[in-house]
C-alpha cells in the first residue's frame, strides 16, 4: 500500500449523545432482528476513507473530483466491496483536498485504473480491524470470523460494524489485509445509480456555482476578443455608475498564460450587476505578436510546418527506399480544427483570502494545483490553504487548468473579502483552452494488400509548447500508435506550431485527432487493397498474440489478442457483412485508447446529401467493469460527444477573433441528431482501465469512413458541416 493511504491516528469527527460502545459489551449474541442500534456515535474515522456510524452504516469518502465520469460512485463502490458492507448502508461524501487520500485528480481516464488496488486495500484494512476487534471481544481467532453484509460473524456470535468500530479504531491497520476473491464481489460489477441522483433531480446544491460563503461578493471578468492580448487601458466611468458595483480593476497576467491572462475584474453586490457593468467598460487591448487572424492563415502555417523537417519520433526500416521502389504510393492529408470544451457549467470559483489562510471552493479537476497556485499568488503556505471541490458540471479537460481559480484568488487577495467569481458563457469561449488544431500528412507504399511503408508527418499547435512544457510532441504525436510495429518501414515525424490560441487537454488529448487521421487513412488503404476494412485491419494486426510496445499513456504495451477480440465482437454484434439494411452505409475503426480497447461501427444514411447517423455499435474492453450502468453511460456519452464535434465543431476566426462566443454560433449536438448507441463490453478479469475518454476518438474515423461509403466523399478535414454534409 502506498504511503499516502496510510492513516495516522483515528479520531472521532462527530460524537453525539453519550458514547455507547460500553453499553453493548455485555451482549455477544444477537439475531439480526433483535440487535439494538446501541452505539450512539457517527463518523468514527477508521481510516481516511471510511467512517463508521453507530448504526452499522458507513460514510465513505469520494476522493476525486466528479466531472460526470462517475467516480463519486465507482470509487466508493470499490471501498464498500472490500469493507463488505451493503451499498444501501453507505453514504458517500465528497472528500476535500487531503494529503492522506493520495493524488486527487480527474484526468486521463485514470480514476479507477490508478485507485483500484489502493482502494481495495483501504476497504479491506478497515474490514480487517473490525474482524480483529470482534475476535478480541469474543476471544476467538480472527481466522474464525467472517463478515457478511456489514456484520462480523463467528459461530453464534454476530455483531454489526457499529458495535465494533470503537474498538477497531484502537487497533493498528494492516498494510496487507486479506482481499476478496473477485468471484465473491457483490458490489463491483453490479450497476449502482449515481450517488447524487436524488439531489440532481430535485435541484439541491451540488456544483461550484451553487456554493456560497458568508459575506461574499460577486465578480466576473472582461476578456479580450483576440486571445492573449494585453490590456493597455480601460474606461469604467459608465460601469461604475451602476448601483451595486463595488470595484473594477485590472487582472494581471501571470508568467504562464495557462495560469492567468490579462482581464478586467468587475466586483458587484450581485452577479447580474457585475454582468451588466462589464458591458459598459471600454477597454483597449494590444494584440500579441504573431497571432492567428484566420483559419486560412493557420492552414498556411501547417503547410510550412509539414514542409519543415520535423523531429523524427520513430523510424523503422527505410521508408524512403520503399517509396522509391514502390509503384503504388498513396498520400493523404487530414486536418482537425480547434474545438471548445464548452462544459455545461460555466467557470466559477470561490476564494476567501485572509491574513494567513485561504479558503477555496469550486469545480476543479486538479485541486492540488489550485492549492499550489493560490500559495504562489498570496505567499501563504500551502498547508494554510483549504481546498474543497464540488461536483462538476462537465470537465472534458478544461478544468485541469486553474486560471479561473487563480483569478478568484487574485481578486479576493486584492479586495480582502470572499468572492465568488463567475464567467459568462462568452468568457468561456474567449478563455477556453481549445483542443489543438492539427494537420497529418500520410504516405504509404503498398504491395498488393500489404502495406510496405507508412510515413506520417504531423504538425499541430502543441499544447505543451503553449504552456511551456516539453516535449512539444507530448499528447500530439504518438510514435507507437497502431499500426506502428505492424509495418516494416514506418516513420513518424512531428513539427510544433506556437500560436496565440490557447490550447489544452480535451477528452483523449491528441489521440482524438491522430485516431481520426490514422484510422481514416487506413480505411483508404483498405480500399486500395480491395479488402473489407475489418479484414484489412485484422490482417495488419496479424493472427499472432503480441504485446506491442506503447510508450504513451495506456502503455507500456497493448495486446493484439484483446484488440482482435473487440473487433470480432463489434463485428458480430452489428452483423457486419451479414445484415444489409436498406439505405445504410457502414464505417469501422478500432484501436487501443488509454489502455482500453475499442472497436466501433457506425451506420449512416445519406438523405439528399446530408448525413444522418442511424446507429453506433461499440465494443470496449476496459478490463473489469466496476459499475456497468455508469460504464455504458460513459461510452455512449463519448461517442455522442464525438458526433457533435465531427458534425459541427470548429473555432472560426475573423481578424483573430472567435466568431462563436456562445451556443447560438457554436453548435452542439442535440436530441434529434443523437443516434442509438449500442454498447458492449468484453467481460474479463483484467485490471480495470478508464472509460471516460476511450470511446470518443474512435467514433471520428468510424463515422467519416461510413460517410465515404454513403457519399463517395473522403472527409479529411473536420467538421462535416464544412463540407455541407450536415
Amino acid at each position: 500500500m502506498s504511503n499516502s493511504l496510510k492513516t495516522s491516528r483515528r479520531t472521532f469527527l462527530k460524537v453525539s449523545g453519550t458514547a455507547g460502545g460500553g453499553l453493548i459489551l455485555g451482549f455477544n449474541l444477537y439475531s439480526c432482528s433483535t440487535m439494538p442500534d446501541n452505539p450512539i456515535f457517527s463518523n468514527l474515522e477508521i481510516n481516511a476513507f471510511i467512517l463508521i456510524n453507530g448504526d452499522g452504516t458507513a460514510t465513505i469518502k469520494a476522493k476525486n473530483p466528479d466531472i460526470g465520469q462517475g467516480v463519486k460512485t465507482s470509487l466508493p463502490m470499490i471501498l464498500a466491496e472490500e469493507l463488505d458492507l451493503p451499498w444501501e448502508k453507505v453514504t458517500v461524501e465528497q472528500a476535500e483536498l487531503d494529503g492522506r487520500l493520495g493524488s486527487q485528480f480527474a484526468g486521463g481516464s485514470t480514476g479507477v485504473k490508478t485507485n483500484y488496488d489502493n482502494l481495495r486495500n483501504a476497504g479491506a484494512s478497515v474490514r480487517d480491524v473490525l474482524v480483529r476487534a470482534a475476535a478480541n471481544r469474543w476471544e476467538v481467532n480472527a481466522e474464525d470470523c467472517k463478515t457478511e453484509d456489514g456484520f462480523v460473524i463467528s459461530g453464534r456470535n454476530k455483531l454489526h460494524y457499529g458495535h465494533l468500530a470503537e474498538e477497531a479504531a484502537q487497533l493498528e491497520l494492516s498494510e496487507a489485509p486479506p482481499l476478496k476473491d473477485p468471484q465473491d464481489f457483490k458490489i463491483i460489477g453490479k450497476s449502482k445509480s449515481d450517488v447524487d441522483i436524488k439531489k440532481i433531480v430535485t435541484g439541491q446544491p451540488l456544483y461550484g456555482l451553487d456554493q456560497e460563503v458568508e459575506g461574499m461578493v460577486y465578480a466576473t471578468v472582461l476578456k479580450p476578443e483576440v486571445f492573449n492580448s494585453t490590456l493597455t487601458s480601460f474606461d469604467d466611468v459608465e460601469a461604475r455608475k451602476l448601483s451595486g458595483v463595488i470595484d473594477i480593476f485590472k487582472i494581471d497576467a501571470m508568467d504562464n498564460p495557462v495560469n492567468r491572462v490579462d482581464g478586467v475584474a468587475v466586483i458587484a453586490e450581485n452577479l447580474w450587476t457585475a454582468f451588466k457593468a462589464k458591458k459598459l467598460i471600454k477597454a483597449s487591448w494590444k494584440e500579441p505578436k504573431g497571432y492567428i487572424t484566420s483559419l486560412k492563415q493557420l492552414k498556411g502555417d501547417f503547410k510550412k510546418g509539414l514542409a519543415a523537417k520535423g523531429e523524427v519520433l520513430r523510424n523503422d526500416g527505410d521508408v524512403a527506399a520503399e517509396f522509391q521502389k514502390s509503384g503504388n504510393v498513396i498520400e493523404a492529408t487530414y486536418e482537425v480544427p480547434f474545438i471548445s470544451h464548452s462544459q455545461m457549467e460555466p467557470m466559477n470559483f470561490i476564494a476567501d483570502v485572509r491574513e494567513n489562510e485561504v479558503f477555496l471552493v469550486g469545480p476543479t479537476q486538479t485541486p492540488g494545483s489550485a492549492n499550489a497556485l493560490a500559495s504562489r499568488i498570496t505567499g501563504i503556505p500551502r498547508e494554510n490553504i483549504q481546498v474543497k471541490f464540488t461536483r462538476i458540471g462537465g470537465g472534458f479537460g478544461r478544468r485541469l487548468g486553474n486560471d479561473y481559480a487563480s483569478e478568484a484568488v487574485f481578486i479576493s487577495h486584492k479586495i480582502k473579502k470572499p468572492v465568488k467569481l463567475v464567467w459568462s458563457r462568452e468568457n468561456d469561449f474567449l478563455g477556453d483552452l481549445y483542443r489543438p488544431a492539427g494537420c497529418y500528412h500520410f504516405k504509404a507504399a503498398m504491395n498488393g494488400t500489404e502495406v510496405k511503408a507508412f510515413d506520417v508527418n504531423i504538425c499541430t499547435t502543441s499544447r505543451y509548447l503553449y504552456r511551456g512544457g516539453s516535449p512539444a510532441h507530448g499528447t500530439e504525436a504518438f510514435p507507437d500508435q497502431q499500426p506502428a510495429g505492424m509495418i516494416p518501414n514506418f516513420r513518424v515525424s512531428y513539427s510544433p506550431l506556437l500560436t496565440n490560441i490557447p490550447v489544452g487537454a480535451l477528452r483523449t488529448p491528441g489521440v482524438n485527432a491522430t485516431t481520426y487521421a490514422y484510422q481514416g487513412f487506413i480505411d483508404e488503404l483498405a480500399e486500395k487493397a480491395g479488402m473489407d476494412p475489418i479484414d484489412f485491419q485484422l490482417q495488419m494486426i496479424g493472427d499472432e498474440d503480441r504485446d506491442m510496445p506503447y510508450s504513451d499513456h495506456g502503455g507500456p504495451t497493448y495486446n493484439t489478442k484483446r484488440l482482435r477480440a473487440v473487433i470480432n465482437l463489434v463485428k458480430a454484434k452489428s452483423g457486419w457483412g451479414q445484415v444489409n439494411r436498406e439505405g445504410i452505409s457502414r464505417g469501422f475503426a478500432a484501436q487501443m485508447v488509454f489502455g482500453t480497447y475499442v472497436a466501433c461501427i457506425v451506420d449512416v444514411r445519406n438523405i439528399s446529401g446530408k448525413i444522418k447517423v442511424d446507429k453506433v455499435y461499440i465494443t470496449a474492453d476496459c478490463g473489469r467493469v466496476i459499475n456497468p450502468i455508469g460504464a455504458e453511460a460513459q461510452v455512449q456519452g463519448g461517442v455522442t460527444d464525438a458526433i457533435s464535434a465531427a458534425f459541427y465543431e470548429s473555432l472560426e476566426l475573423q481578424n483573430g477573433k472567435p466568431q462563436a462566443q456562445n451556443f447560438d454560433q457554436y453548435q452542439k449536438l442535440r436530441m434529434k441528431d443523437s443516434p442509438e448507441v449500442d454498447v458492449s463490453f468484453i467481460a474479463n478479469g483484467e485490471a480495470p482501465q478508464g472509460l471516460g475518454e476511450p470511446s470518443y476518438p474512435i467514433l471520428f474515423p468510424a463515422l467519416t469512413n461510413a460517410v465515404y461509403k454513403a457519399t463517395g466523399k473522403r472527409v479529411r478535414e473536420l467538421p462535416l458541416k464544412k463540407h455541407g454534409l450536415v
Partner: protein
Amino acid sequence: MAIYNITVNGEQRQVDVDADTPMLWVLRDSLDMVGTKFGCGIAQCGACTVHLDGNAVRSCSIPVSAVGEAKITTIEGLSEKGDHPLQEAWREHDVPQCGYCQAGQIMNAAAFLSKNPNPSDADIENATHTNICRCATYNRIKAAVKTAAANM
C-alpha cells in the same frame, strides 16, 4: 432596484432587485434556489428552464419585471417528495452524467408531458431537442421520458 412580489412553487416571495434582472438570477442569488442552472444566458441551452404557468420557459431571458402574476415552478417545486414520474424515471435510467443540465431537461420534459401525456418517439425527440446536454445523455433522456409517460 424595486420590490417585486412573485409566486414561486406556490409561495409568495418578495425580492428587491433591478427590473431587468433575469428570473434565473432572482431564483439563484436572491432566493437561494440553485436548482435552476446557468448555461448560456441567451436562451440557447435550456439549463435554466422553469415553468411559467405550466409552460417551459428560459429563466435566463425573462426579466423579473415581466413575470407579474404568473406562477413560477422550479425543479425544487416540481414535486413535493422528488417523486414526479420524470424524477423517478431519471433515477431508474440513471440519466445524469455531470448532471448539470438535468434540472432543465426534467422541467422541459415535465411541461411537455403535461400537454402530451401519450407522446410518440418523434414527439419526444422534438420536445427534447430544445435542451443541450453537453455530456450527451440523449439516449437515456429519451428512454426516461418514455418511461415517465408510461407511468403517468
